[in-house]
């Protein structure tokens, strides 16, 4: 069966510090991978998605970047965090094909102080 791992679960970082959130998927190959950010009242905002190794599409201009160094690994990074980067970050994967379900990780609660 497929599983998705996301860590850490919670993170408190000072403004200006770097960030690295990691997501890995097991039990499937060539998944479509996504990073979402969830803020109160704004639902799930798609930040990045990737359809393959090294392929990253950015949905919104921001202080964050994403990378996919391996087929089932997706990393969200920042060189210098801003207060506005605080939020709940969710990694997800979907398979190819019509109407495929998106499976989410447990999320990372990031607080920038």
């Amino acid at each position, binding site marked *: 069966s497929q599983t998705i791992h996301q860590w850490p679960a919670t993170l408190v970082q000072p403004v200006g510090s770097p960030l690295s959130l990691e997501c890995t998927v097991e039990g499937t190959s060539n998944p479509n991978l996504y990073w*979402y950010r969830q803020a109160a*009242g704004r*639902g799930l905002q*798609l930040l990045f*998605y990737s*359809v393959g190794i090294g392929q990253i599409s950015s949905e919104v201009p921001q202080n964050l970047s994403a990378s996919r160094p391996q087929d089932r690994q997706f990393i969200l990074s920042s060189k210098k965090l801003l207060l506005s980067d605080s939020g709940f970050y969710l990694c997800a994967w*979907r398979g190819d094909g*019509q109407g495929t379900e998106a499976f*989410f990780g447990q999320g990372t609660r990031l607080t920038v102080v």
Partner: protein
Amino acid sequence: QQQVKQSPQSLIVQKGGISIINCAYENTAFDYFPWYQQFPGKGPALLIAIRPDVSEKKEGRFTISFNKSAKQFSLHIMDSQPGDSATYFCAAAISNFGNEKLTFGTGTRLTIIP
């Protein structure tokens, strides 16, 4: 640009009542409409989904009603229970290769009171 509009933002329903959450979309190319349920501190999980070739889909106490001409779809929770208290997201996608994005609504926080 928000392509899926969801309402209400929050909803309080008495136990045993019917909870109704509505969504409207703009892009007529969308052909997959899932609903996700999220409990606090957890990632969303698929609850039920529909494709536009049917007007209604029912799974247990959960029903999706779909109106293609109005570009609207809704989630109905019958006999609502306290365990249904969660945030619900509608979503829409174009399910063909090259279009892998799942666009979400802003969410509805549902509270079921005894």
